[in-house]
């Protein structure tokens, strides 16, 4: 995978209830994430169908590109805080980035 981009990072993707957006942003900030991207989504999972009602999308899709230690901290923290009571799913991938300094 050489030649395309310089450095390796992790991409953490979180799908969860849209009402958690502010809360999640606070967590990411506290954990030290330098940036993230959020978009609206809907879907289905163990907690049933989540489709958009009343001006709020049902789910959000949060992406954080960061280094491995931060990715681990994010996963651990969100699992502890939300897994028991909220509709939430997370996955992790390898990505290559151009400016590693932007992604701690």
């Amino acid at each position, binding site marked *: 995978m050489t030649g395309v981009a310089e450095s390796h990072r992790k991409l953490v993707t979180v799908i969860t209830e849209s009402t958690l957006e502010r*809360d999640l942003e606070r967590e990411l900030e506290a954990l030290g994430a330098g940036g993230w991207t959020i978009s609206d989504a809907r879907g289905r999972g163990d907690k049933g169908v989540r489709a958009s009602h*009343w*001006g709020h999308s049902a789910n959000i899709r949060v992406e954080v590109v960061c280094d491995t230690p931060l990715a681990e901290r994010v996963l651990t923290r969100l699992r502890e805080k939300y897994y028991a*009571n909220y509709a939430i799913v997370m996955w992790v991938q390898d990505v290559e980035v151009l400016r590693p300094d932007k992604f701690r």
Partner: protein
Amino acid sequence: MPGGLDPIVMFFGLGLLAGALKADLRLPPAIYEFVSTLLLLSIGMKGGIELAAGGGGGLPLQIALTLVLGILLTFLAFFILRGVGRLDRVNAAAVAAHYGSVSVATFAVGVAFLTRAAIPYEPTMPLLLVLLEIPAIVIGILLAKGLRSDTPWGEIAHEVLLGRSVLLLLGGLLIGTVAGAEGLEPVKPLFFDLFKGILAIFLLEMGLIAADHFGGFRRHGLFMVAFALLIPPLFAVIGIGFAALMGLSPGGAILLATLAASASYIAAPAAMRQAVPEANPALSLTASLALTFPFNILVGLPLYQRLVDWLLPA
């Protein structure tokens, strides 16, 4: 259909039917927000205009009694849910918060009902609506979690006190009070003339949403159905009692009964999700949206009018 149901509830029926048939009639969320913003501002401004015209006597007593009413209804719902329904503490507290609190949509249909019947009501009602929305949520959280220190009260207060409905109602009330009927004449075509049409659109969407929640019944059993249909008339009677204590007019009493009978489906769910995430949100929403809301606008309003005629003879 003079003397009977308001034709606008037929829009609710249309939504319900479309939803039951799984038809794709859903309005975009942006329209739902637009329409509800207009309704909330209208209701607030209407109250404010009347206040400006000098209709706000006896307010401190009304405020105090409204807060007591909110607390009382929540405890009552909680004990029924625990004692009769055998719900666990957390779910009983969450449902109780919904039923102690109020539904602005139900209030709006009540206002349309009174307008149609040409029955006047106190201009302070939108204020009481706001006041009745809040204590149930606080009590509900306390009943669920006790006085634990990790409850994010700051965030919950922010969510509830600065929620859309509270701010738009109070903002409308303030604007109406300051500007008065004459000052608001230029915005009358949007906020007052269109009120019932906008409410019709809103009810169409509410019908669709209610239909979505019917599925929840199968799971939650007969007790919840009975609860959602019997609590409204019971709470309405209590509301009429408080209206008598406040010295409200028949119109005001009908609205207070309607508020007491109504169950929150916006403010309370949001607050409970945040503060009591262990509670099953579908339980409260199904009861509130799919049963109590239709019951109140279809059966409740005319019933509460009769109850007021009977219990509070002029």
